[in-house]
């Protein structure tokens, strides 16, 4: 055991928090009778038995070094949401204009899920509401009103969300 370790342990005993310790200054305090130059001649001085605190300190250091657990993936992509769920839109059979946004302007047919980009439940709701609207006389059956052509496009059949055969 070198005197360096002795000084370290003494430093930790007195000032455990203060890590930047002037070892030389402490050495002077511990062994005032000896000159600094003589400290380097380790063979001259008797070994001092001091209790080891190394294990305790080592364990503390190990805990600091361990990687942090339960961290979320920083590269995880945002969850995609269908447009009706995102804005919490209430689809109603009376709202013919909203339902018309999911109809083709050419055939007047309802677009499939791969084109509308809606989740299964919302697509089902839209389809059932369209049928209700047609039965109640709010929505035309085989055409899309010309006044609704300039509405914002929610569905683009040329760029489907999922590939389709057509």
């Amino acid at each position: 055991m070198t005197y360096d370790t002795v000084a370290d342990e003494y430093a930790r005993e007195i000032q455990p928090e203060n890590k930047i310790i002037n070892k030389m200054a402490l050495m002077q305090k511990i062994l005032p009778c000896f000159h600094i130059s003589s400290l380097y001649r380790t063979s001259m001085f008797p070994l001092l038995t001091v209790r080891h605190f190394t294990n305790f300190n080592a364990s503390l250091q190990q805990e600091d070094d361990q990687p942090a657990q339960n961290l979320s993936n920083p590269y995880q992509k945002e969850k995609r949401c269908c447009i009706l769920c995102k804005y919490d839109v209430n689809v109603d059979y009376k709202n013919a204009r909203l339902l018309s946004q999911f109809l083709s302007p050419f055939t007047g047919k309802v677009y499939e899920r791969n084109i509308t980009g809606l989740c299964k439940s919302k697509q089902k709701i839209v389809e059932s509401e369209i049928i209700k609207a047609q039965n109640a006389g709010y929505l035309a059956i085989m055409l899309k009103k010309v006044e609704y052509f300039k509405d914002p496009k929610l569905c683009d059949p040329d760029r489907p969300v999922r590939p389709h055969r057509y």
Partner: protein
Amino acid sequence: MPSYELSLMLRVLSKPELVSSLKRSAETIVQQGGVLRQFISIGTKPLPFKIRAHTQWHREGTYFLMKFDAPSSAVENLNDEFKRDIDLIRTHVVKCEEPVKQECTLEEELKSPAYRKDVQQLVEESRKTVRKQFKQNSPGFDYYPFQK
């Protein structure tokens, strides 16, 4: 009593006639044991397609909305009554239900088939080999087949 919504489509009438026909339909609801809650006018609009009602073709109509609470058995009778009314072109009774809040499952559906849960379930089902069990036809008859 569950709450219902009635979307009425009336033919083009003068104001006093319109009032009387609306009153009539409201009274039928009350007769069946219903309670009227709201009365909303959507206006006179051209119909999306020509509709035939009681030997007449209509291209314009007045839309009204009636919200009411009624016993579930009353709906059938209401529809029967409305069929016979000449002024009504189309009626549609819908049950008012709060939509069930569900999370959007789009992300799950857009995954490739190998990662989709429903596809994985199908694969698991196909792996299960169902062994056909021999069906014993005894007793085969309801009666005792041998003459005593």
